[in-house]
């Protein structure tokens, strides 16, 4: 690849490509990500659509919040089981709304660590039509207790 073909002006996502330089030598150049620059809107469109679709399934009681986060995280039940160190059969049960209620707090915390969410995020989502809202979830020394700070941002 010629150096000029690699050049993408996109500071938000930089990467290294190896190219044929103007003097004919080969070497690295720092450039922007072509796919992020040109297709990131499409990525977020698909992501939002998936979130909405799976949130509806949670709402209807078809799946558990664990299944919701698993799909968004592009994990399989078997990989998730290995990550939370539980049996695959148990994890498959936890993916259903029916068995979600049988989960222990310790097991829920393990799932939360994998998805990087707090335990409360497994039980509710925050929906608002207010703009400029700032929502910060503050961790405490207690792993099962967080403080949710909601404030209005400056206009």
């Amino acid at each position, binding site marked *: *690849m010629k150096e000029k073909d*690699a050049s993408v002006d996109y500071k*938000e*996502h*930089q*990467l*290294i*490509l*190896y*190219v*044929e330089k103007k003097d004919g*030598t*080969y*070497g*690295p150049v*720092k450039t922007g*990500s*072509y*796919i*992020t620059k*040109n*297709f*990131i809107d*499409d*990525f*977020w469109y*698909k*992501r939002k*659509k*998936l979130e909405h679709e799976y949130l509806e399934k949670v709402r209807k009681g078809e799946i558990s919040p664990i299944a919701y986060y698993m799909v968004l*995280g*592009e*994990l*399989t039940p*078997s*990989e*998730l089981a*290995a*990550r*939370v*160190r539980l049996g695959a059969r148990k994890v498959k049960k936890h993916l259903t709304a029916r068995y979600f209620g049988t989960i222990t707090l310790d097991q829920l915390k393990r799932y939360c*660590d*994998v998805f*990087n969410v707090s335990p409360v995020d497994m039980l509710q989502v925050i929906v608002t039509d207010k703009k400029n809202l700032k929502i910060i979830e503050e961790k405490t020394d207690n792993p099962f207790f967080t403080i949710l700070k909601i404030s209005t941002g400056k206009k």
Partner: protein
Amino acid sequence: MTFQHKMAAHCESGTVAALLNHAGLSISEPLVFGISAGIFFGYFESKKFPFPTFVVRNRPGQIRTGVARRTGVRFKERRFRNPEKGERVLDDLLSGGKPVACQTDFFYMKYLPDHVRVHINVHFITVVEKRGDVYVVSDCYSPNLAELDRESLMKARFAGGSFSPRGFIFHPVSIPRRIDYRTAIWKGIASAAFNMVRLPIPFIGVKGIRLFAKKVVDWPSLARDIDHLSHEIMKINIFLEDQGTGGAGFRFMYATFLREASELLNDPDLLEMSKRIMEIGDRWREISLFAARIGKRRDLGPDRLGELSAMIYERADAEERFFNDLLKLSKSKK
């Protein structure tokens, strides 16, 4: 000595090269990659992956072990059952001024853009320093040194699942006075070429590329809907270009390695081969751009996927010729 942060194409080859340079051995990322026989292809369908996938590099960890075996560099490596002990050992090394490479789950690298962070346990970073509860991290994918809080680094080092890091750390402890680059380079080349054309496994090497070409037309039956299919098809571009390959699924970096090797060994045959793999890489890049465009347009009918498949088959043929010639060349140079 201050650790020099530098972006690199790939996390493992970049981390190994950076640590060796810090330890006094001047070596480039492509040379590390080539000597360790990094170039590869594998097509995988497994319970561990939500969708079929492919890899374009050798098994994680083999870049370090390959370089060590072929150059005589020695690394101190440790894994931990106990996370507290893993943290203590890392902190002790850092307090002694030693930069340390850590294997981590990429998902917890908070300083990188959200959309690139996925759960994959084979991301390598160099931890340079600890300031209070924050680690200073040199990540080849970050333009600058980054900061990572203690909790995130611990989660990343001790994540479960496939290729679980178990707190794995390494750092170089000895560099030989003289390295026999001729032997190291040719062994690396022979090993890479063997993996690509001689391994009798149907999903590895050139056979793996053909399997990918054959299977990609069936992907619509595996996808939830057209948007999911589009996402997976566009990931072909990410796997080939964006996910730390240096472009064209490491083919451009391998071309740079062969070029550097030809200069180091004064070997015109390697120069010729470097031009050939650069051209092969150009066609791989056409595939990745094509995949991104048809994915965005949702133009994913049988004709278009057939076209994509034909392009991949063509790469399999070109790589079969290339790696067979490279294998012959490596045998003739012994």
